[in-house]
Structures are given as C-alpha cells and as structure tokens.
C-alpha cells in the first residue's frame, strides 16, 4: 500500500502541533545533543543550526506519520463498523432488565 492513499485526504488532517511531531522533534533534538556530547562539544550551546535541523526533520516526519496513523485507524474503524452492520445477529444488545427483576426478593427479618 502507498504511504498515504488518495482516500486519506478525506480525513481531517492532524494539527501542526501534534503528539507524534512533538515526540519525534524532541528525539531529533536529542540526537543533535547526543552528537554534541560524543564530539566533545558544549552539549546545549554548540551547533544550534544542527539542533534546529534535526528537530525540524523529526517534526516533519512526525506530521506525515500522524497522518498515516489516522488513516490506518479510520480504515480499521470503517471495516469494523461494516462488519457489524452486515452481521447484526452477532451484536444483539441484551434486553434491558428492570431493576425489580435484578434485586432479590425482600424477605423482612423481624
């Protein structure tokens, strides 16, 4: 399957600030900081251009991954509801019981 089929465009797109993007952006930033650490440079203040680039790449990849995740979940939901619609006998809700039938009979103990 393609990364994002055509029908995925009918779904509402994830917001620009979303969990996947934030996480992968932070992971990219952490990778840049780790590289600074390994290269014996000041961890936070060195290579800001590198930190910005890695965080950006993570954020962009996160956006597209979030879109694909939404699409996969929507597809599964559609298939599941279609199945439920086609097999109503398997999904009958049990008849509602009245509270009087549920409780035990009251036998006064005097």
């Amino acid at each position, binding site marked *: 399957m393609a990364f994002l089929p055509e029908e995925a*465009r009918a779904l509402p797109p994830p917001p*620009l600030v979303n969990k996947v993007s934030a996480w992968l952006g932070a992971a990219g930033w952490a990778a840049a900081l780790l590289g600074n650490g390994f290269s014996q*440079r000041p961890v936070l203040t060195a290579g800001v251009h590198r930190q*910005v*680039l890695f965080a*950006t*790449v993570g954020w962009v990849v996160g956006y597209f991954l979030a879109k694909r995740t939404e699409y996969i979940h929507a597809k599964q939901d559609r298939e599941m509801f279609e199945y439920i619609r086609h097999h109503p006998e398997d999904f009958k809700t049990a008849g509602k019981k009245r509270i009087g039938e549920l409780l035990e009979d009251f036998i006064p103990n005097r």
Partner: protein
Amino acid sequence: MSAATARPPDKMAAALRAVVRLRLAGPGPGLVFTRSAFVARKHNYDQPNWFGVGLAFSTSAALWALLFKQHNEDVMEYERRKEERKHKCTGCS
C-alpha cells in the same frame, strides 16, 4: 628474535608496525594526503563552518515552509470533500 625463528603472528605484527610507521611519517612528495580511517585528527572549531550553518538553517526554513504549505493544502482538501459529501446526501439547500 630472528626472522627464521619468528612465528607467523610475530611477523604480521612487525609488518603492521612498519605500515603504521610509514603512514605516520606523512605524505611523501607527490602523494595526496587522503582521509583515512586509521588517522585521527581533531576538528578545528575556531572558524565556524558558515556554509554548513547556512545550509542547515535554509534547509530547516524550507522544510517548515513545505510543512505549513502541506498542512494548509490538507485542510483545504478536507473542507472541500466535506462540502462535496454534504451536497451529495442532503442536496443543495
């Protein structure tokens, strides 16, 4: 230990030592000093690599611009398809 009585590992060790000494002697005249996995040099951070810095920042800016553009296009497409679906089901009001 004479070469006649040297064991094969000793001979190999001696050959490696000779190779290392030749390498560390530096490039001879007419030789190009190529990068090698066996020679380590420290980076010189006195002068910033302005080309690399500019490339990284411009790439980041381009990526953000592309991301904003893509998101706006996605929102427009979603709204367009929503309107289309409404007209199909309920008919034009």
